[in-house]
């Protein structure tokens, strides 16, 4: 090899190495720059592509195309499971990087998100005041006078019952009080219609917490006061009695012992839809139409109904756990996102998504419109299973925490579901569970 060839080879080798290095640098720079936050285009409301990330299926393509034609905004929709989504929201907000232009605002996270200022107040973009009368659940999305997100469905807790199983046990009138409800379920059990007729999910997961909140409300109690102090520690409180009734129902066999590992969705999908249980005390609004009356997922089509949730002296209130949508502070196009949210939560779109304008406009699994006017319209059209009961329950539905979910809600909820689960599993008593939940609430409320 002569010296010139050697020099050329050496240059080539160095060039190859440098190219690799530069490519790596470019890749890393690309990674870093993809996380840019809002820039000078923040005010653009046309000719942009916004990213919408929800734990929900997207609207039909044609519907999104319609929105694009109307506004010039292209929507890139990502369906991410709820737990992962909360992690992504927290990680992106903490790192102050762009994640989405519009994403999930869960009712239970409103206090936390409000305190952290991770989302744009929707009041800056939409006329929230005009929505209030039509969206009873809007209150659950406000913190410190600011609206963190807009509810796009009206998920609230309802009681569902398999009317046929009640009738098979000789019960013709649906119960309205807890005592009657318990007696009827025992009758169903004694008549051999169902071995374990009551369905309450006792898995250590969020569904157990919400079931307890709903039962507490039915027993006339509240969970926390405006300062976050527990309201359930005395034995005559609604919360204590609710926990006792739930656990006792499991110990008495009204609820299957195996329900200590049943989550809310699993309970609905397998136990209620397959006719294993006669009633789900704290079910999701919309399940009758979206699940129990769908032949491919149910063996009890036409048998289930919503009943006003039995309470101490008559029907109790129904608590909301709606899904909301908001604009993260790091959104690239907040104004365009706001335009999308207005469209997405409009009365007509909600009617479309819930099946009021034909099957081709439906969002799969869409629970129930958050606007009462949309529910009324669906009810009038006769396209909503159990619409009459749902419409009346929605109008009276209440937030779980009238003063907004506290910023420490996730930690509190974890204490609720792990301890109530332990009481159901027999590793602690109801008394011990309630004490632990109360201690956690006191500790969190005091900020220690």
């Amino acid at each position: 090899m002569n010296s010139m060839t050697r020099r050329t080879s050496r240059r080539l080798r160095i060039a190859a190495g440098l190219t690799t290095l530069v490519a790596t640098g470019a890749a890393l720079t690309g990674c870093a720059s993809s996380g840019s936050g809002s820039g000078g285009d923040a005010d653009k409301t046309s000719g942009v592509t916004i990213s919408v990330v929800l734990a929900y299926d997207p609207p039909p393509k044609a519907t999104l195309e319609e929105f694009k034609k109307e506004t010039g905004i292209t929507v890139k929709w990502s369906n991410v499971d709820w737990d992962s989504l909360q992690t992504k929201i927290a990680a992106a907000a903490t790192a102050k990087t762009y994640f989405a232009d519009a994403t999930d605002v869960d009712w239970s996270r409103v206090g936390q998100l409000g305190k952290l200022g991770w989302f744009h107040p929707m009041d800056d973009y939409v006329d929230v005041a005009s929505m209030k009368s039509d969206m009873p659940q809007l209150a659950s999305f406000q913190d410190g006078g600011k609206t963190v997100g807009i509810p796009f469905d009206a998920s609230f807790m309802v009681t569902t019952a398999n009317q046929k199983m009640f009738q098979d046990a000789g019960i013709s009138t649906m119960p309205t009080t807890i005592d009657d409800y318990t007696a009827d379920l025992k009758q169903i059990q004694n008549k051999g219609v169902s071995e374990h007729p009551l369905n309450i999910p006792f898995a250590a997961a969020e569904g157990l917490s919400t079931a307890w909140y709903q039962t507490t409300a039915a027993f006339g109690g509240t969970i926390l006061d405006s300062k976050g102090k527990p309201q359930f520690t005395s034995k005559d409180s609604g919360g204590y009695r609710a926990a006792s009734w739930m656990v006792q129902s499991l110990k008495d066999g009204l609820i299957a012992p195996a329900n200590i590992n049943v989550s809310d969705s699993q309970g609905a999908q397998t136990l209620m839809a397959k006719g294993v249980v006669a009633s789900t005390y704290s079910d999701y609004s919309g399940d009758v139409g979206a699940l129990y009356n769908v032949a491919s997922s149910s063996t009890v089509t036409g048998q289930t109904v919503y009943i006003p949730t039995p309470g101490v002296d008559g029907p109790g209130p129904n608590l909301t756990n709606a899904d909301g949508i908001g604009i993260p502070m790091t959104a690239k196009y907040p104004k365009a996102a706001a335009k999308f949210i207005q469209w997405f939560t409009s009365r007509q779109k909600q009617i479309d998504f819930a099946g009021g304008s034909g099957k081709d406009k439906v969002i799969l699994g869409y629970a129930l419109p958050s606007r009462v006017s949309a529910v009324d319209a669906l009810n009038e059209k006769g396209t909503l299973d159990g619409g009459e009961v749902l419409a009346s329950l929605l109008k009276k539905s209440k937030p779980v925490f009238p003063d907004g979910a506290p910023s420490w809600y996730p930690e509190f909820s974890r204490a609720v579901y792990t301890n109530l689960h332990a009481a159901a599993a027999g590793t602690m008593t109801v008394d011990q569970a309630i004490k632990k939940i109360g201690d956690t609430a006191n500790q969190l409320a005091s900020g220690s």
Partner: protein
Amino acid sequence: MTLGLRADGRLVPPGGGRPAVRRRRAADPLPYLLVSPLAIFIIGLALIPAVFTIGAAFFRVDELDPPTRFIGLGNFVRLFQDDAITSSIGNTALYVLIGVVLSTVLGILFAVILQKPFLGRSALIAVLILPWALPGVVEGIIWVNIWDGNTGLLNSVLTTLHVIDHYQVFLGQNQLLTVFLTEVVQVWQITPLSTLLILAGLQNIPAEIYESASIDGASPWGAFWRLTLPLARPGITVAMVQAVIATLNVFDQPFVLNGAAATGSSVTMQTYFVTFQNLDFGEGYALSLLITIATLVISFIVLKLVYRPVEF
């Protein structure tokens, strides 16, 4: 240039092979440039975050309680005052013990079965690897249908065989049983990799060694005990270390099968709760650091106890 010939037949440069003044070879930058992308990625995505995590573990980094401030060992103290975390440490210790022992024993067993060629061996290996390729959450969901107390397959089989007269609740009531059954699901996932790692080691053992042993009168059991096991030690070590890492970080299986219940909650689950639900990043960093230290220490112990260099 004219080369001379030395007595030993080697070529020597002009000058009769006098010791030449050794010139310093210019360093070739190519190897460094070629490894630099990997090095940059490792430094940027692993080492720098690791150093950051170690430092931040001594600070109060709580989004709901700003500002960030130095608190020394405060995060670690709070970790050990939290009942949920201390119980999860106990659970995780059991996950590691059960998982490493079971996956290693089964890995050795399957590797020995697959050591010699037979009809359908390749197909069997392909099937064997499937659980390893499945996401943990999917496996959790599959096994929910087996362990479930309402409609589970195990209950159905045991009832049909009259082993039990009514359906039993397997998960959530007894801590040891819950941890064991949950870990069985993870063992199902990690054993294929253990098998392949051990099998790779076994493939290196020359057949002549077994032939010699056979001629010397060694029984199959004796050959396994005195030849296979000692010679497979490097592969077994790697398999055990990967099992330690997997079991110390178990998340999906207990989360899907038993939720956040204290009877099965793992340390990694607690890290998730503390970091992404409570938004207490400082405590999350501290817990992550403890998991890393535990991983290193246990892996080092395994290495010291099991690994022996093998040369053929």
